[in-house]
């Protein structure tokens, strides 16, 4: 049984590593978007040629951000949950609700992942090109985007399995640490971290 837990733990560590890596890459893309937009504004003001496609590529970056950052946000427990009923429950019920929550995330994650795929499949089979002067083949950004949702579904499943094992074998404190509700906001955490 211990082997199972440690296996799940290691799997979760790997998931966390990949998710954080994806976030780092997207962070870099966001800085690139800032740079490109500023260059575009300056070029336009000077009346010089404009960079084609800044608007278009920024849109793709946002779409990729919207799917690929979800896994890290889930693992960091940063999706907002309302503690109206939760906080008034006894600890056993809270643990159960945490499990209900993570499995609704798993469910929704897979439903989205399975429905993201046809969007890409259709653009691929149809040879769809963006309605812009660059005519980007749409399957390229859509492939990266759809993979992000698939990764989110996988990450949620790994976390779900790990949490169930924790509930069965390790106790409530461990479940709380994995998928419990946090009361602090990420922004405030950051500010405190800075003051230290």
């Amino acid at each position, binding site marked *: 049984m211990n082997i199972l837990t440690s296996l799940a733990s290691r799997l979760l560590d790997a998931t966390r590593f990949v998710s954080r890596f994806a976030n780092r890459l997207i962070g870099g893309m966001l800085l690139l978007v800032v740079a490109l937009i500023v260059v575009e504004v300056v070029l*336009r003001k000077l*009346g010089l*040629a*404009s960079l084609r496609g800044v*608007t*278009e590529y920024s849109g793709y970056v946002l779409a990729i951000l919207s799917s690929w950052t979800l896994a890290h946000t889930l693992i960091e427990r940063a999706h907002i949950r309302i503690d109206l009923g939760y906080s008034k429950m006894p600890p056993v019920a809270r643990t159960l609700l945490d499990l209900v929550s993570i499995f609704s995330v798993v469910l929704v994650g897979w439903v989205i992942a399975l429905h993201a795929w046809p969007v890409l499949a*259709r*653009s691929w089979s*149809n040879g*769809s*090109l*963006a*309605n*812009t*002067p660059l*005519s980007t083949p*749409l399957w390229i950004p859509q492939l990266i985007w759809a993979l992000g949702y698939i990764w989110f579904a996988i990450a949620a499943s790994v976390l779900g399995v790990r949490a169930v094992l924790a509930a069965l074998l390790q106790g409530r404190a461990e479940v709380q640490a994995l998928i419990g509700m946090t009361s602090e906001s990420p922004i405030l955490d950051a500010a405190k971290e800075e003051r230290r």
Partner: protein
Amino acid sequence: QPISVVGSWSSVSLHKDYELPFWTETLPEASDDRLEVQLSSFDQMGINSADVFRYLSDGLFDIGVTLSDYVVSDAPELEGLDLPMLAVDPIQAEKVSEAFWPIVERTMQSRYGAKLLAIAPNTPQVVFCNTPISGLSDLRNRSVRASGRSTAEFLDALGARSEVMDFSEVPGAMERGVIDCAVTGSLSGYNAGWYDVATHLLPLPIGGWDHAITAANGDFWSGLSTEDQTLIATQARDVFAHGVWSNIADSAEQGIACLTGEGECRAGSPASMTLVATDEADLETAKEILSTKLLPAWASRVDADTRALYNQHVAPLTGLSID
């Protein structure tokens, strides 16, 4: 069970004055109340205008309408229908759209498994500027908001800088000089109050005629009786689309009258934009760009059968054929 129809923009004349009475009154009456319709529009449904036909082929509704310019990502063949300056006047525009029918019909079938029912225009897509211009050549070096890819290509060929921008952002951007000019339908521009920020109107259809395509889901269509199929097809083409086309010259004049005050404006109090006269040289330039840049670019994006259909049906009308 009523037929569910998703119409075009709920705020434009095409929807209010034509789609609404046709689908909710004319067609049910013509069928002796056998057919019942539930009509909404893609903006009211919260559907992105570019996704309408994807949803139609997924079976989310029975009949859908969207503008050909919005779906050229999936169906580049439809871009040909609305190439800038392919048709300069309403009569020619109607003939061109009829000549394109075989291409559009084949495209809707092959891309979406859908049955084409009607092709109807909005108002011509003209140029609004917040800076004095005296003709097409003055767009050189100006930044102009384009309504679609082929319009952008046309503007770039003129030496202008084409920009992509949300319709709702245009007035603010033009007012503050982020852009100099913008292309949109003349009556849409009037209704959205663009005359508050724009001073000059160039009435050439640089963005084409903004064709709306009405089509039916394939499964829905094949589930209808032959009698109903014939009724809907003939009513949509001969009553609905014909009705729009027969008033298009008047709508185009209305757009200009309401924006410039030259002529009688029935839609409200006329604005006083300066109407820029178009001359032969402008038309020549436009035709040159169309035949040397836009048509070849379009031809390279479509298959050989579409090119053959174009040369067979459309080229005799426009005098421009493709290799």
